[in-house]
């Protein structure tokens, strides 16, 4: 269900050179992704085609970042084993990001 947004990539600010040096590699569910140091995880992942960050704890249906302002809590992922909101946590080199495992419990 990947969405690969097309970007104009018009280079609005002449920072392309500087930008490239900020590129880092992190993983999401063991897959490598490219991000820019300091950008929010949710954005880096969506650019990489990841829309579903995890699943509903109740019934396992896929869920993604919804509010991007720390309200909905649906962007919760594990970053290096620590639960964090992907709309708040920022990308850094070598981050190991995983979805939270489905619970498989009742309601």
């Amino acid at each position, binding site marked *: 269900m990947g969405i690969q947004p097309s970007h104009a990539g018009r280079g609005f600010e002449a920072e392309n050179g500087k930008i490239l040096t900020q590129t880092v590699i992190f993983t999401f569910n063991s897959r490598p992704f490219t991000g820019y140091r300091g950008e929010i995880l949710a954005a880096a992942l969506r650019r990489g085609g990841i829309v579903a960050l995890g699943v509903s*704890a*109740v019934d396992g249906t896929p869920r993604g970042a919804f509010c991007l302002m720390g309200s909905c809590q649906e962007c919760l992922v594990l970053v290096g*084993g620590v*639960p964090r909101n992907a709309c708040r946590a920022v990308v850094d080199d070598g981050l190991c990001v995983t979805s939270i495992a489905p*619970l*498989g*419990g*009742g*309601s």
Partner: protein
Amino acid sequence: MSAVMSRPAVMDVAVLGAGVMGSTAALFLARQGRRVALIDRKAIFREASGVNAGTLTLNMTRAALVPHALKGREMWLEARSWLGRDVGAVATPGLSLAFTEAECALLEERAAARREMGAPISVVGAARALEVEPGLNTTVRAAAYCPLDGFIPAYGVGRGYCLALCEAGVEIMENSAVDGIARAGGHYEIVSAGQVIARARSIVLAGGAWLERMMAWLGLRMRVKCLVNQLVVTERLPPVMGSVVSIANGLLSLKQFVNGTVVMGGGWQGRGHVDTGETSVIPANLVGNVRLASFTIPRLSEARIARIWLGFESETDDAMPAIGPIPGWENAFVIGCVHSGFTSGPYMGRLLAQAMDGQAVDLKAFDPARLLLSLPSAHKGFCS
């Protein structure tokens, strides 16, 4: 409340307070064929009975209450048979833990006291404790093991009661804060905001932490201890534990609900005042409670806290309930203020209904008279 109100019909019984005590009494009274009004200043089961930890434990119940807790626990597990629906009660084993030598001694002592009162509790070693609860901190030294424990998600229980009460014909009056009772002819008049909102031949006072105030309406002073209990709930987690866990000193109650959330309690206190209903968290107590819980079940340290809340638990000096006739007042009864009252609530509520029906039940140990102080004195209304 409507401005114009016709004179309410005289009911057989008016029950004041729609927690587990009042609601159970009302239910069984109605089943005996009485016309019952159940009155609460808020909605049904929204105070202690709707916000409690829902532990059905013998390890933490006061020893003297074990026989009653056993019966209450049974009733919850079989709610279908008397409430007409399941309320989500789950039977699990229970463990009370010792991490230090001092706690080991305490454990032995407390287990023995409960065993004497009929709780099937045995003290086991670390290996057996870890077999029962693999999620435990492996530094555990000993545990009091009880095969009969369990829990209920308390917040939803009021719904089952509401339906059952309606089926039984009880008139439920919510959002009706009673502020006085008057004797008029052969019956009682229940007054709220200057109006008589109900009339009844008998009354049952079941106001939980507010019982001291209710008794004062009758000119009586009953000593009620009020605790402001703190509970902490996590987000849903994969299974991290399967039993009800406490520690020897009684300051922890921990279990994972079917939905995956873990509730941490154990009588840690917040601040609050029963008159205003205001409560607030004491930060050091929050940290202590959470540390103890995550020490005991280490995987809890990966969780996030979703919510913290406080509720008013009331207790008499001897932790035994006040159940029975109110001295000096005809056809007036009281029920409440027992330690761990959610567990024994259904059993005790039914007992009162049976007693009011003239059935031979033994309420001696619960006699409200033992709790009455002769001289009315100004009450503070503060909870520590």
